[in-house]
């Protein structure tokens, strides 16, 4: 099979920069990371300098995601050789055991880390992940709540807790978690939009009105958020259709819903037109090349 550098005509520096970008974006495209990273560390490890260790860690985690235990073990052994007493490497050892479903041994590793360093957040989060992987959502929620009492500012943890509550259909508590996230990230349209969806799902007139307001807020922060646009339409329509509202509220919500519908129609027309334009450009390119070929032959 052709290597990544041959397939995409890239050098090792571009591959290294791509891995850095994926690291910073925290994207979970594990198959691509494994392909690029494996080639980088097998052919160009000496050129990477100190970056090689963080790349080993990134590739190892991606390899676990793709069931590539061979590659994961290779990376882990290199890291162990270089950093023999590191808690970070111990956590990776635990993650490998988790991937092999040896949860008890993994827990022992994490407990050892926590005995040494009770403030190690990574080990605590891995223990909670083990509970989630075993389907023990109730216990995971309990542990995560205890964790958040000590580490109140951990946004990743608040988001994880909100997802756990949504899966357990406890929408009130999920909304609370998202409120914490919105307080610390007032400009993040995704949290607003997800909060609005949770409120909508909870149901009831008050929650629908709140949901409409937060969908609007999400649109203010990012006017291209299609989910927020659809959400605004749905919540305004439901409020307008409710028998408990006054005539003025009904009229206002019909206006909002109509506006949202209009925006959605426009967005779809533009997207359709854009793809049509792209198709026409491609076709015209093709015909031009074909014509050139005909001219020269």
């Amino acid at each position, binding site marked *: *099979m052709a290597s990544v550098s041959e397939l995409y005509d890239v050098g090792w520096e571009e591959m290294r920069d791509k891995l850095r970008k994926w690291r910073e974006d925290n994207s*979970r495209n594990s*198959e*691509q990371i494994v*392909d690029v990273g494996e080639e980088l560390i097998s052919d160009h490890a000496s050129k990477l300098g100190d970056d090689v260790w963080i790349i080993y860690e990134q590739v190892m985690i991606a390899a676990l*995601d793709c069931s590539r235990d061979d590659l994961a073990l290779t990376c882990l052994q290199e890291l162990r050789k270089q950093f023999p007493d590191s808690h970070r490497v111990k956590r990776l050892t635990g993650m490998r055991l988790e991937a092999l479903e040896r949860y008890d041994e993994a827990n022992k590793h994490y407990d050892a880390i926590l005995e040494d360093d009770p403030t190690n957040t990574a080990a605590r989060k891995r223990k909670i992940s083990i509970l989630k*992987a075993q*389907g023990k959502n109730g216990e995971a929620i309990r542990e995560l709540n205890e964790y958040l009492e000590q580490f109140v500012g951990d946004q990743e943890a608040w988001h994880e807790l909100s*997802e756990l509550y*949504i*899966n357990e*259909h406890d*929408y009130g508590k999920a909304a609370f978690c998202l409120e914490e996230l919105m307080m610390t990230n007032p400009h993040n349209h995704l949290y607003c939009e*997800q909060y*609005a*969806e*949770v409120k*909508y*799902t*909870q*149901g009831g007139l008050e929650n629908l009105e709140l*949901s409409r307001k937060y969908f609007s807020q999400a649109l203010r922060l990012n006017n291209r958020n*299609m*989910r927020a646009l*659809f*959400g605004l*339409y*749905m*919540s305004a*329509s*439901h409020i307008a*259709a409710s028998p408990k509202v006054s005539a003025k509220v009904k009229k206002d919500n019909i206006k909002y*819903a109509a506006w949202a*519908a209009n925006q*959605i*129609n426009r967005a*779809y027309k533009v*997207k*359709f037109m854009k793809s049509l334009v792209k198709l026409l450009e491609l076709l015209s390119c093709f015909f031009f090349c074909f014509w050139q070929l005909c001219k020269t032959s």
Partner: protein
Amino acid sequence: MPIQLTSQAYCKMLLHTAKYPHCAVNGLLIAEKSKEKKKDGHGVPVLCVDCVPLFHGTLALAPMLEVALTLIDTWCKENNYIIAGYYQANERKKDSKPNQVAEKVAARITENFSEAAIVMVDNSRLTVSCSEPIVVIYDHHENKWRNREVTMYASDCAFPLDVQAFWTCHSAKCTLRLNFSPATFPEHVKLCSLNRAILKHSETFKIKVM
């Protein structure tokens, strides 16, 4: 009543599952609307000719689900199809039971189509080689969703051979990373007649998940 899946519906479902291995995914199954009125409800099995992948990640939130169901229902009515089932693949490998979301959506579908089924993907048997069907089908009996035996059979659709060829071809494409991926909800319904669906407020699929 037995439910049948064409190779297209089956493979699209599995490809959607494979595209997001770390998330739960769900979608709808579409069947052609039968013109003859069934007198006793038995006989001709339901043939799901296609599926519409919906979401991945958090499946238990109502607004987008309602929008999707409304749009797809409108599209089906215009093209003489009907929503005949719901598929879901759970997040964890060993979990292939339908949860509350699956039951609620399927209950809504059943209101419009009485023989609706839930098709759950059995994650633990998902592999590159495709030698047996890896779905578990549930249908509604006496207020409970009960699972039914799944069999492969050779017919005009040539289900097993089609599937093997399709799956081998496309899983190979996935590993070589050529441009193939099944489009999900927003892309799929892009070219539907959105105008009518949006301007007509539909109460049909109001889902209350609580």
